[in-house]
């Protein structure tokens, strides 16, 4: 279908973008790669009156090593994230999960910040942001502020971004040595949303699990941190038969998964347990060398 009409602005600097966005009315939307937004427009599920295209704002794009964290500019494409040597070295979980986002053509256009700002609990990156305690950097005409991932996702497709605010980038903390990572995703086709996804990070010392972080995709109106699993996995011997499975049994605790054509809530809860186990096993096996 053809989208409804809107005014289109294409600022070339962030300052200009903020000014245009602030003056474009309440129904204005920021457009980056458009891979989530344009399908909504085409289905007439969204009717923005104005679109502020930040796709040409150079300062929003790129990956930078900032010492204790990696900064990923909001309009860095998924393809650029996956290819970035900095991301691969310091944030392997981001690279693993981003490589599963849709398909190559969508990854060429879709952006890291766009996927997060869209706040779709079925998207792959929100659960990763939560598991890694990413920090969102946001700018408005009144200045910068930061939002921890735990406070960013408020509800289905609803983030903590206020009117006039633009997500400029995301800080991904470097976790240091001894961590292993995995993103386990169950979906029907490349383009389908994850029925359920699990982002896992595991830190071990001599085979003992010291710390676990688990983020769940599509298990509620926001991404979910599987706190029960994180507590249960601490201190277990990763190699001992069944120890990680037992921890993974807590995965559905406190979740409120949706019902749709692809899965009912009880099936999603089952998937969360099974996939969390797989993710923990893989993350334990793929840990980075201890240095």
């Amino acid at each position, binding site marked *: 279908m*053809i989208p409804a009409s*809107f005014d289109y602005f294409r600022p070339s600097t962030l300052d200009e973008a903020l000014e245009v966005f602030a003056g474009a009315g309440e129904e204005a939307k920021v457009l980056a790669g*458009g891979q989530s937004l*344009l399908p909504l427009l*085409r289905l007439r599920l969204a009717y923005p009156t104005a679109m502020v295209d930040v*796709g040409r704002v150079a300062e929003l794009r790129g990956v930078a090593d900032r010492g204790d964290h990696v900064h990923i500019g909001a309009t860095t494409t998924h393809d650029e994230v996956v290819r970035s040597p900095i991301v691969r070295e310091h944030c392997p979980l981001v690279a693993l999960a981003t490589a599963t986002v*849709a398909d190559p053509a969508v990854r*060429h256009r879709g952006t890291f910040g766009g996927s997060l700002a869209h706040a779709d609990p079925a998207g792959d990156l929100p659960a990763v942001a939560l598991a890694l305690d990413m920090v969102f950097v946001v700018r408005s005409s009144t200045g910068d502020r930061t939002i921890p991932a735990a406070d960013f996702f408020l509800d289905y497709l609803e983030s903590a971004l206020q009117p006039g605010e633009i997500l400029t980038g995301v800080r991904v903390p470097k976790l240091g040595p001894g961590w292993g990572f995995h993103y386990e995703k169950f979906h029907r086709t490349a383009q389908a949303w994850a029925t359920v996804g699990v982002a896992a990070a595991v830190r071990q010392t001599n085979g003992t699990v010291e710390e676990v972080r688990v983020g769940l995709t599509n298990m509620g109106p926001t991404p979910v941190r599987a706190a029960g699993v994180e507590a249960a996995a601490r201190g277990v011997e990763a190699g001992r038969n069944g120890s990680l499975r037992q921890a993974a049994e807590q995965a559905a605790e406190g979740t409120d998964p949706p019902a749709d054509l692809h899965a009912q809530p009880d099936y999603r809860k089952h998937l969360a347990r099974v996939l969390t186990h797989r993710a923990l096993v893989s993350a334990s096996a793929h840990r980075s060398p201890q240095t």
Partner: protein
Amino acid sequence: MARISVEVDGIAYEDEVEPRLLLVHYLRDRLGKTGTPIGCDTTNCGACTVLLDGRSVKSCSVLAVQVDGCDITTIEGVSSDGVWHPVQKAFHEEHALQCGYCTPGMVLASIDLLKDDPDPSEEAVRQGLEGNLCRCTGYCNIVRAVRRAAQEMRVTTP
């Protein structure tokens, strides 16, 4: 209305477009490039895949205004001087199409794939084309064609 200048299959165009005009509609309805079909219209099937500055994109999910200043290649621009692109030739020789509707997108996604990986395994081809659906389910011959084209391109451009 917004003014765009865009190069499509080697020819420069200047046009006034409505901001809501999708790239695929611009290509088909304005430029008459009907070689790019509309498949699902939901960013799923990949039939409308074109190259935007050399990389595959789904033209139903890009606005025409967003490609201002860019270079687009459609299926109508991949042959040169009447000589088929090696991927087109391989699709013909391996009978990698039945109804042909997905073929333009498959060919362009394959060209993009081979840029990154000049010698893809069967698995790599299947992964690389995961965004393109063939509802005749003729995937085996498509995979064979892409690998054949890869071989030919390695021979002709060492």
